[in-house]
């Protein structure tokens, strides 16, 4: 060989050696990374250390803690969750106070959702198969289920908890309620979240109801006029508003337009206003600090004086359900005079000074030209007004995107535009809800709901729950609790629909809990008391501002309702225990117990005592007989109530005193002795319902 060849071969050998060594080094580096540098090894080592310390402190023997990949294999879900490889202390109660990743799970959720059955990512999302933090938490590209932070984890409850209301997930439940109430479901399909009726009022007689001036102001910026109103802000141009108003004003009710304009008596109207308890449902005044006072069930009335057509209001008060079939407003038995006086009171009391000012300064807006009306009609359809409002026989289709699976939409399909938000589905939804135009194109159709942070979050969580990812089998699903809708076809049902009892009361699963739950009213109160109360309701708590309106029920109606409630709203199982042992009761011992337990701190007895709970010996001028607890309540209610108030009414603040059976019956017997000597049982005529019910009771 030539020298040059020799030296080249030597060079090549050297290079071969160098690269071989480098390759071996890189392979060793891979092995090293694999076996030593993974952070989870350090976490588990720390965990083992802490375990050893605890064992030492407790004087028990140390156990060897192997450092290895740990996982929950969820065959049915097709998932492997290795979260416990880092979060090793997740089910160790002794690690409650440790910082992450060693901390134990908060609450007792793992008790009901065992980790071997549910793993971690079913609820928290993230990437269960990964073993490094960013990938496992799903904060990496190409993983569509990033870890849900904080309350957002409630979104995944819906995988199994199919009910609209999930008590353990209040924000999710609230969000689903909002989806319905704000009319989201009018424009968007949202899977199993559907609304029974439209979110806004029917517009069939809008032209006879409101002034055009008001309508223009309202359409321009409803949130400015009524910040708490449901109507969202569409950001319309003045021309568009005029056209829309012109179109809507064409919908008039001929009988109202033809009725004569009359004037009522303001003062008489004020009395009607008080008796009808309008304030329970409507904001009707401001307190000294300019805060609105009144309920939020019905619309705010503070500025309707210059909005409403008094002739429409009169007709509405006479028969509200013919105008708004789904309203919560009860039907009152107003006479023509009462209705007229109340309408007079309304337009004089609740003046809108801005509109009044405008009325004086500016000319009446011109009625719409045919061109404007045509434009308005097109606009009405384009904006999707029909999603929330009924107008004639018009059929509407959802105009917004389908949100049935919005929660599992791949994030790159969402139109983020240039918005400076984190690219995740919840961030998108929250930003979009808070300000619909912020995210992408100016032409976004969705109006601005001016949502509060809490509401936007609740809605985001509800939308996140609309996911393609569901439980793998029925076995996991918590079935929808069948709802017992109270809607009987009998006479009581007719009365309920007229007085809209369910706007305030709850019966089984229907209605609102603004007033008492009537489901067990027959177990709770005596029929006689009920009859009196229906005739002249009063408040048993001086601190309460709201009370039942005085409906002036006709006598046969109040009798029928009292009988119906006493005999139908009964659970016969509730009274069984009391009836078995009531003979062993000793009222005197009950009185001693009453004094010993300090009941008087919250309840009044003969004028002394606290104001927290209802008085036990009510004396009110409106109800001359008075009702004491012994006259009103039944033993079969008091006894289980004393044993466990929250079992009967979960919201009750009555303390559970942990009374023994004997103590409870003694106390019950004592309370039953508290009867008003003045109270006379009126010999009320039995209604048909009671006659039917009595023989059954004997059986």
């Amino acid at each position, binding site marked *: 060989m030539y020298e040059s060849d020799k030296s080249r071969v030597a060079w*090549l050998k050297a290079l071969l050696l160098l690269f071989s060594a480098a390759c071996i080094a890189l392979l060793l580096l891979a092995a090293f990374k694999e076996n030593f540098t993974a952070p989870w090894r350090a976490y588990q080592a720390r965990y083992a250390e802490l375990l050893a310390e605890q064992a030492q402190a407790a004087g028990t023997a140390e156990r060897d803690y192997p450092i290895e990949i740990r996982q929950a294999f969820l065959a049915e879900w097709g998932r492997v969750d290795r979260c416990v490889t880092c979060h090793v202390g997740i089910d160790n109660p002794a690690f409650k106070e440790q910082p992450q990743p060693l901390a134990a799970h908060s609450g007792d959720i793992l008790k009901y959702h065992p980790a071997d059955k549910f793993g971690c990512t079913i609820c928290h999302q993230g990437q269960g198969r990964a073993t490094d933090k960013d990938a496992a938490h799903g904060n990496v590209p190409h993983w569509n289920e990033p870890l849900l932070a904080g309350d957002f984890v409630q979104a995944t409850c819906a995988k199994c908890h199919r009910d609209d209301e999930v008590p353990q997930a209040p924000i999710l439940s609230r969000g689903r309620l909002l989806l319905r109430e704000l009319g989201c479901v009018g424009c968007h399909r949202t899977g199993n979240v559907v609304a029974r009726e439209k979110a806004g009022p029917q517009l069939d007689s809008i032209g006879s109801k409101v002034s055009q001036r008001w309508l223009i102001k309202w359409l321009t910026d409803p949130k400015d006029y009524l910040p708490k109103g449901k109507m969202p802000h569409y950001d319309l141009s003045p021309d568009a508003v005029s056209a829309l108003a012109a179109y809507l004003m064409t919908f008039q009710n001929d009988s109202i337009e033809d009725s004569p304009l009359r004037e009522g008596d303001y003062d008489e109207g004020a009395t009607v206003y008080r008796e009808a308890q309008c304030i329970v449902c409507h904001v009707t005044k401001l307190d000294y600090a300019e805060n609105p006072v009144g309920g939020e069930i019905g619309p705010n009335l503070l500025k309707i004086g210059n909005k409403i057509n008094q002739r429409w209001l009169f007709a509405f008060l006479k028969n509200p359900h013919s105008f708004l079939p789904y309203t919560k407003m009860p039907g009152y038995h107003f006479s023509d005079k009462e209705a007229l006086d109340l309408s007079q009171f309304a337009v004089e009391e609740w003046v809108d000074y801005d509109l009044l000012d405008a009325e004086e300064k500016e000319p009446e807006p011109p009625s719409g030209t045919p061109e404007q009306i045509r434009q308005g009609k097109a606009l009405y359809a384009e904006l999707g007004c029909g999603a929330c409002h009924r107008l004639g026989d018009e059929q509407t289709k959802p105009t917004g995107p389908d949100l049935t699976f919005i929660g599992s939409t791949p994030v790159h399909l969402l139109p983020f535009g240039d918005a400076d938000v984190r690219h995740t589905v919840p961030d998108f939804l929250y930003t979009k809800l808070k300000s619909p135009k912020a995210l992408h194109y100016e032409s976004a159709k969705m109006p601005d709901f001016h949502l509060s942070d809490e509401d936007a979050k609740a809605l985001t969580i509800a939308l996140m729950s609309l996911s393609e990812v569901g439980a793998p089998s029925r076995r996991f699903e918590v079935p929808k609790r069948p709802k017992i809708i109270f809607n009987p076809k009998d006479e009581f049902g007719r009365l309920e629909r007229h007085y809209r009892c369910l706007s305030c009361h709850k019966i089984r699963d229907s209605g609102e809990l603004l007033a008492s739950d009537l489901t067990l009213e027959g177990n709770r109160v005596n029929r006689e008391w009920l009859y009196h109360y229906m005739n002249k309701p009063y408040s048993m708590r001086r601190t309460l501002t709201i009370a039942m309106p005085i409906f002036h029920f006709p006598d046969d109606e109040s009798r029928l309702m009292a009988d119906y409630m006493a005999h139908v709203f009964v659970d016969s199982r509730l009274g069984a225990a009391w009836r078995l042992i009531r003979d062993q009761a000793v009222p005197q011992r009950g009185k001693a117990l009453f004094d010993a337990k300090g009941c008087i701190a919250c309840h009044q007895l003969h004028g002394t005592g606290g104001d927290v709970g209802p008085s036990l010996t009510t004396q009110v001028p409106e109800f001359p007989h008075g009702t004491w607890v012994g006259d009103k309540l039944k033993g079969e209610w008091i006894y289980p109530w004393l044993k466990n108030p929250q079992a009967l009414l979960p919201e009750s603040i009555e303390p559970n005193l942990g009374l023994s059976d004997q103590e409870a019956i003694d106390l019950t017997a004592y309370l039953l002795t508290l009867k008003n000597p003045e109270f006379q049982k009126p010999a009320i005529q039995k209604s048909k319902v009671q006659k039917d019910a009595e023989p059954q009771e004997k059986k």
Partner: protein
Amino acid sequence: MPSGSSESTHSAKPSDGASREGDTVASCGALRRLGRNLLDTPRQFRDSLVRHGRPTSDRAASQAVFHNLFLHILPTRIHRYSLRIRATLGLGVITLALFFLLVITGVALMVYYKPSPEHAYNSMKEIHNVVPTGRFMRNIHRWAAHGMVLCVILHMARAFYTAAYRRPRQFNWVVGMLLFILTFTLSFTGYLLPWDQLAFWAVTIGSEIAQSPREVTDALGITSWCDIGGLQKQLLLGANHVGPEALIRFYVLHVMVLPVLMCILLALHFWRIRKDGGLTRPADVDEETPQRPAGDKDMGGPTANISKTYGLMAVVRGRTPAVDRSLVNTIPTYPNAFYAIAALSMFTFFVMLCLGHLFDAPLTERANPAVPENPAKAPWYFLGLQELVSYSAFAGGVGVPAIVMLGLMLVPYLDRETTDTGVWFGGPKGKRVCLASAVLTIVVVVGMLTFTVNVGWLRNWLPDIPQIVITLINPGSVMLAIFCAWSLIITKRTNSTRMGALAVFTCFLFAFAILTYFAMVHRGPNWDFFWSQSDWPSH
């Protein structure tokens, strides 16, 4: 026999043992013998493994190569010129090294990979997350696959520009073309296996291209009884859509059929290199024969004897190392070429291991037929075709590439000139032709893309035009026609088929590069033009 001496040493040993056997006492001798044999086993084993000693002479070195199954694919002697970097750029060796790496990492991945739609993606995640060094292995496999495609293209270009396809190597060029196609197919079949969105939609695009002959049969109205496109897609996918059948087909092709074919063709490729007279080199390279230093005994001098010897060893056609004075310029493969190959291979491994450590192979979301990727892009090496496909599926996906491949295969049979073989670009004139072709290609392709992006194509002006017209006249076919015309002009003007071949190859190569770049960077959702990805519409 050149190996006679070493064989005689081997045969001597048993007779040694036999004589010792006779000397020892039978009763206790066998046990002692067993003990001695046991002690002697390592040396015996080494001798049986490497049947010759350390190669101390050229001849022994040649035997080392000749007697070794793995080395004997190399000739025993190699021309000095072939060892120069500029002769080959080492591209063939790098490609082979990458193939080795792919086989090794591929087998490792096969252990954990499960070829079914339910488990494929999860098994990829397992390989990434919990399989010891699984992610590292997959990274290497991925980057080596891309690297191999790139090196195959460059290797082909090298072979072309040094006219290595010429007689007697015409057939080896054809084998090389087949290997080129095989490499692309291997890479493409591997693309589907992760079963992620990237894979799923890239393969969907690929299967649409396979179906594109339907464009022609539709135009001719014969699809109902001669649906070649549909048949091709059916054969590829085993169904109408990418699904479990397609996955298992791709898997079988990727891990068995294609690698076996690859090995066979590789063996043929290497064998032909030897039989066709080694690597190409310029005809005048031996004129600069170095002076032999005095006292160099090994070579034995260029005598008739030696030429005979080599003639026995390797029956070769054409100019061989064993004739004339070129023998003087050959050197033993071992250690000269051996260490060069080993060092280059090891360097390739080193680069790939580095890439494996530094960059993770992509793994996007699980394949979801309901959520199309927009844009759905094919693997990078098919993007140039995809750009042409956007005008006409058949022309871009089947017609143009088939003509190009066929044309390239025919080149050795059309260009039969013999001058300047082994010279890069065939000399200064060829360089000028290549440069001119490159400039022309850039102008034509960029111009064509600018035109179609800004103005559109036939369909934009004549909405009712029959599809067959577009199949025939589309940017792909027009560019192909321009390149062919250019090649013919060059052939005529230079009066050289070699120049024409250089021109057309340069055009193809540059067009491929520009189209690939354009489709990779400037095509966005709906295959619309964008200056950069940041301009893509958000929805």
